[in-house]
C-alpha cells in the first residue's frame, strides 16, 4: 500500500516521503514538460533528420541504444503515435487530469518496457562478447577453475548426445583411450624396501649417463693407440689405467657434489605445528611420538577421542 502513493516520479516534491501529488502538482509537471518539449523541438528542428521525438525524457534514453537491435525501435514508433496527439491535448490540460493520469500511466509503462529492453540488451552484449573473444588461458588460472570448466564442457557435450555422466568415457577418441590404457598399465612407484629394485637402479643409471658427452673422435684415437682395445674381463692388462685429464676429474667431482645436493631435496621439511598439543617431554620423545602416530594413528583415533571426551560413545 505504501508503494502505491499518488506520487508522480517527475514531481519536484517526489523525494518527500509524505508528499502526495495533487492536481496542482500535475499541472506544474505538465507545464514543465511543455517547456522542455518546446525547447527540444527547436533543437531537433535545427539538427538534421531527427525523427519525431516528442518526449524529452525518453530522448535521454535513446542515444546509447542507438546501435543496438530493434528492441526499442518498435517502442519508438509506437511512441510517436501517442505523442502526436499529446501536444494538441496538452494545451487543453487544465481540465483533463484523468487523461493525464492515464497518459502518465501509459508513459510509465512504456518507460518500464524500455528499461527492461535495455537490461536484456546488456545481457546479450555480454554473451556475444564471451562468444566472440578467444577462451582465456588455463595457465595462471587456478587448476580447480580449469577442472570445473572442463567438467562443464563435458557435461554439455554429454547432454547434447543424451549421455549420462557415468558414460563420460564414450566421448574419448581412440587415441585418447589408448593413452589412458597406457597410463593404467604403468607400474606404481615403488616404496619401502623396494626402492632400489632393478628397474629403478637402471633408470637412475640411465639418467646419470645422459649427461656424459660422447666424444667419438677421442674414442677412435684411443682405439688406434691401444692394440688391446676390446679387452676381455680376464685380460692381463688389469692394473693399467690411462692417464685421466684433470677436467674429467673435475667433472666427476662436480657431478658427485650435485648428486649430494639433490639427495637433500628428496624429502621435504615439514612445517612445525605450534598449536598442536604437546604430548612429549623431550625432543626424542617427540620424534618417537611422531613415528608412532604414523604407524598406529589411524587405529587409535577413536580411542583417543573417547579419552578426550571422557566417555566412550555407544556403538
Amino acid at each position, binding site marked *: 500500500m505504501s508503494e502505491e502513493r499518488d506520487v508522480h516520479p517527475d514531481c519536484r516534491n517526489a523525494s518527500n516521503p509524505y508528499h502526495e501529488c495533487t492536481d496542482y502538482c500535475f499541472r506544474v509537471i505538465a507545464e514543465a514538460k511543455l517547456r522542455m518539449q518546446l525547447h527540444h523541438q527547436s533543437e531537433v528542428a535545427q539538427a538534421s533528420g531527427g525523427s519525431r521525438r516528442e518526449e524529452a525524457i525518453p530522448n535521454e534514453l535513446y542515444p546509447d541504444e542507438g546501435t543496438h537491435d530493434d528492441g526499442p525501435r518498435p517502442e519508438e514508433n509506437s511512441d510517436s503515435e501517442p505523442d502526436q496527439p499529446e501536444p494538441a491535448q496538452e494545451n487543453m490540460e487544465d481540465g483533463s487530469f484523468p487523461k493525464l493520469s492515464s497518459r502518465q500511466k501509459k508513459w510509465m509503462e512504456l518507460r518500464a518496457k524500455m528499461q527492461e529492453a535495455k537490461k536484456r540488451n546488456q545481457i546479450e552484449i555480454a554473451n556475444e562478447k564471451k562468444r566472440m573473444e578467444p577462451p582465456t588461458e588455463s595457465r595462471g588460472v587456478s587448476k580447480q577453475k580449469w577442472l570445473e570448466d572442463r567438467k562443464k564442457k563435458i557435461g554439455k557435450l554429454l547432454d547434447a548426445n543424451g549421455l549420462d555422466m557415468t558414460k563420460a568415457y564414450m566421448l574419448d577418441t581412440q587415441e585418447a583411450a589408448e593413452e589412458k590404457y597406457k597410463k593404467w598399465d604403468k607400474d606404481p612407484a615403488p616404496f619401502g624396501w623396494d626402492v632400489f629394485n632393478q628397474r629403478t*637402479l*637402471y633408470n637412475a643409471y640411465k639418467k646419470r*649417463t645422459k649427461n656424459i658427452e660422447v666424444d667419438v673422435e677421442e674414442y677412435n684415437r*684411443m682405439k688406434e693407440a691401444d692394440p688391446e682395445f676390446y*679387452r676381455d674381463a680376464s685380460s692381463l692388462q688389469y692394473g693399467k689405467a690411462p692417464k*685421466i685429464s684433470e677436467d674429467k*676429474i673435475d667433472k666427476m667431482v662436480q*657431478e658427485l657434489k650435485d648428486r649430494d645436493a639433490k639427495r637433500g631435496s628428496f624429502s621435504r621439511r615439514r612445517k612445525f605445528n605450534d598449536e598442536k598439543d604437546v604430548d612429549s*617431554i623431550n625432543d626424542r620423545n617427540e620424534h618417537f611420538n611422531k613415528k608412532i602416530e604414523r604407524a598406529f594413528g589411524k587405529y587409535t583415533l577413536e580411542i583417543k577421542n573417547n579419552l578426550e571426551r571422557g566417555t566412550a560413545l555407544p556403538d
Partner: protein
Amino acid sequence: MRICGGAKNKNYGPIQITAEQIVGEARELEESVIHRHHRPPKQKINDGTELGEYRLRKRKEFEDLIRRVGWNVKVWVKYAEWEESQKDFDRARSVWERVLEVDYKNHRLWLKYAEFEMKNRFINHARNVWHRAITLLPRVDQLWYKYIHMENMLGNVVGVRRIFEMWMEWMPERHAWLSYIKFELKYKEIQHARDLFERFVLCHPTVASWIRYAKFEINNGDACSTRNVFERALDKVVAAEDDEEAHKFFVAFADFEASCNETHRAECIYQFALHHHVPKGINC
C-alpha cells in the same frame, strides 16, 4: 589404626592437575637445564694448539662411541665423515677400513667409502675400493653401476668395457645387459652390440629378449638379419607357454613384415599365430 594408605575422604581434591600440565612442566625443566646449566659454552678456536685439542676431544668422543655402539654403522660413518671434514684422509681411510672389518656385507658402506675417495680426487684409491666391492658383493648391482659410471665420467672407455665384461660373466639381470648394449650403441659399435645380443638371448631366453633383439636389428640392421632373428625366435616362442608374450612377438613380426611390404608373409604369420595360440584380443 592404619596411618598410610587409609584415606577416609574419597572425594576429588579441590585442586586437580592435568596430564598436559605435567608434560609442560617437564618440557620447561628440560629446556632450562639445557639452556642454563649443562650445555658447555661455545668456544672459538684461535690457533693450532686449540685446534689440536678440539680434534683430540672429538676423536676421543668418537672412539668412545664406537666402543659402545660398534654394531651401529651410523656412528662409524659419522666418525669417518668428520675426519674427512678435517681433511685428514689417512685417518678417514683407517676408519673406513675398520668399519669394513666389522661389516663388509653392507653395500652402503662400500658406496660411501668409494664416494669419499672420488670426491677427494683419489682415483686409483677409488678404483681399488670399487674393485674390492664388486669382488666381495657381485650381486649388488648398485656397486657395478656406480663403478661403471665413474669410469665413464673419466672417459676411460676401455675400463668401462672391462668392467662390463666382468659383470656379464656373472649373468646378471636383463637391465645390466641392456645398459651394456646401450653403452656400445652410444659409441656406434654395431657388431659388438650384435654379439652382445646373441649372448643376451642365450642368458635370458625369454620372448621379451628376442623381441628386444629384433627391435635392435630393425633399427640398426637390415631386413635379412631381422628376418633371421625372427625365424630363430619362432621355435622358442612356440615352445614357450606364455600367450601374452607370444602375442606381442607375433604382432611385432607381422608389423615388420608389413613394413617391408610383404603382406602375404604377414598374413601367414597371423594365420600361424591364430592356429597355434588362442590370443585374447589380437588387433590387426
